[in-house]
């Protein structure tokens, strides 16, 4: 077990290094890189002749890469071109703002996802089960920016005093409860439907295992078996899906924060692209990839430890 986990860590490290190299080269070789950004700044007057914009060559990029690696890992990191601050500082500030929405969304996702998934799995009413599943599949597939726009439109009807758009706000200065709730509700619509579908699939699969069938044969009711024996095993599913829930939040945050104008992580990544802020964009890609891999490794390790300690099922 431990060798396989160590192998997994080495594979993850290899993936991270590949992401590091690939991202660096993609960002540096594309037009609109830092070199171009800096050259454009000197020719802002309308009458000046526009410079011939030229990206770095592969050899120049390689030299720059060799020079940049120690800088990236040192305490004197590069500054963001837009904000003129340390990239780590800018990133952490935005990430803190996003966490303010992600943590309540995560707790509510676990609560409602388990409830609805369990309800679909337990119910004997075939019509209700199929339709609930169809609704969750539908919600799971609607793009988030469409959901966000619908909610924004509905809020503009229900709360006309807010004007027709929710303007910029953050963790310290959001203007009303509705402005705080709308983004969280958008996160929830996607993540609850996703978790509910997983819980339902997991419970249905577990209900067909030997220990569940044995309990049914002994005469225990279906809700009793689900609540007493299957529900505690859902913990494994949560361990597996936790990194993916965070990953989903990260992906959704771009659409949600751009629509609701939240100065969080997603909006920052969007702005860093639009401003061609290469150091910030590069740092964010590496930070996200590292965070994803660490989360995966942590929860996989936890799963290995817990599954190893799990006692065999016993019939009641």
């Amino acid at each position, binding site marked *: 077990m431990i060798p*396989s986990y160590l192998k997994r860590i080495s*594979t993850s490290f*290899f*993936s991270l290094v*590949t*992401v590091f190299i*690939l*991202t660096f080269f*993609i960002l540096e*070789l*594309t*037009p609109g890189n830092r070199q171009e950004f800096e050259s454009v700044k000197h020719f802002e007057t309308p009458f000046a002749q526009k410079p011939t914009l030229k990206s770095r060559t592969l050899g120049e990029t390689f030299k720059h890469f060799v020079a940049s690696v120690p800088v990236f890992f040192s305490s004197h990191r590069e500054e963001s071109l837009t904000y003129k601050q340390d990239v780590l500082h800018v990133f952490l500030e935005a990430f803190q703002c996003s966490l303010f929405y992600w943590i309540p969304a995560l707790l509510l996702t676990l609560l409602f996802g388990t409830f609805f998934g369990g309800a679909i799995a337990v119910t004997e009413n*075939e019509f209700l089960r*199929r*339709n609930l*599943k*169809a609704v969750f*599949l*539908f919600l*799971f*597939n*609607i*793009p988030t*920016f*469409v959901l966000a*726009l*619908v909610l*924004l*439109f509905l809020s*503009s009807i229900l709360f006309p005093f807010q004007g*027709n*758009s929710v303007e910029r706000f953050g963790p310290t200065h959001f203007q009303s409860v509705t402005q705080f709730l709308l983004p969280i509700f958008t996160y929830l619509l996607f993540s609850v439907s*996703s978790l509910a*579908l*997983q819980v339902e*699939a997991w419970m249905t699969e577990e209900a067909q295992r030997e220990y569940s069938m044995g309990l049914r044969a002994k005469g225990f009711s279906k809700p009793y078996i689900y609540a007493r024996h299957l529900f505690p095993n859902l913990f494994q599913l949560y361990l*597996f899906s936790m*990194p*993916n829930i965070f990953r989903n939040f990260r*992906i959704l945050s*771009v*659409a949600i924060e*751009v*629509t609701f104008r939240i100065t969080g992580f997603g909006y920052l*990544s*969007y702005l860093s*692209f*639009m401003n*061609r802020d290469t150091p910030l*964009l590069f740092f*964010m*890609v590496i930070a*996200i*990839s590292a965070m*994803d*891999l660490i989360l*995966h490794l942590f929860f*996989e390790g936890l*799963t*290995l430890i817990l599954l190893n300690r799990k006692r065999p099922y016993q019939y009641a």
Partner: protein
Amino acid sequence: MLKRTLLLVVLAFAVPYLANDKPLLVSPSGNVVFRAPIPYGENQFFEGALPLPPSANHWLGTDDRGRDLLVRILYGFKNTFLLSLGVTLATLAIALLVGLLSVSLPAPFNKVILLTMETLGSLPYFFIILAVLSKFNGIESLVILSLLCAWIPTSFLVRGEALRVLSQNYILSARVLGASWMRLGIVHILPNLFSPIRSSFPLVLSGFFYLLAYLHYLGILSFEPHSSLGELLTEGRGNLQSPALIFAPLFATLLPIFLLFPKKGSGDEIKNLQRVLLKNSSHFENLEKFCRQKNRFARFKKLPE
């Protein structure tokens, strides 16, 4: 599902005949002229208190620059749908090929392919899109994107199905009879791999459709001077006081979901789709990896000579 996809394709191709400011057919004498039911062009401007409300002339009204909204939605749907259909077909072809090769090729090569799939799968997708879009625009960007990343989830599905097929008795019989890896792959495994491709098709298609709409919505990609659904949604966001400006593009954006996804009564289709969705979104990926490690030696056991 095929019928519904064909319906959308026919609708997309019929758009120039439904809405056009130029005559569709003129008789040789010039007396008889056939016009489209909606006689407005994509970039035809109208004057008045903009945006014009819905009326008999403009069924959904106009946008804030005076262009007919219905015409723009139809053309936006056509542009977005046809591009995403082309990219989907290319993506599925790559996924099928790579998934098959990752199983059919002998030991060192299939592991290299698997490692490549896992490494490319761990790239931050959205940032790769942004990076690619900063160099290329329009069709090229999406083709490069599909070549880079978009085929990976489907190729994992194809690989899983190929492994399942590989463990069947008739494959063992074929191997005992001396069939080569090439013959096994093309004759025996490939025909069975269209099931995951068929299940993934609506997901990949709608995924690209929404990706395009999303990139247009963010203002990262543009079809200018042609219409796109994402740009219409951005306009709608700025004009929340006019319901038609936001609801009509929203409905057009949701059209693939309404048409491509199974009806509520068909339980098996929903079950299949749920299975594909959960695998596609990699929620069970870790669990599968864990199980694969336990059964690895049993699954790849060599046949006795």
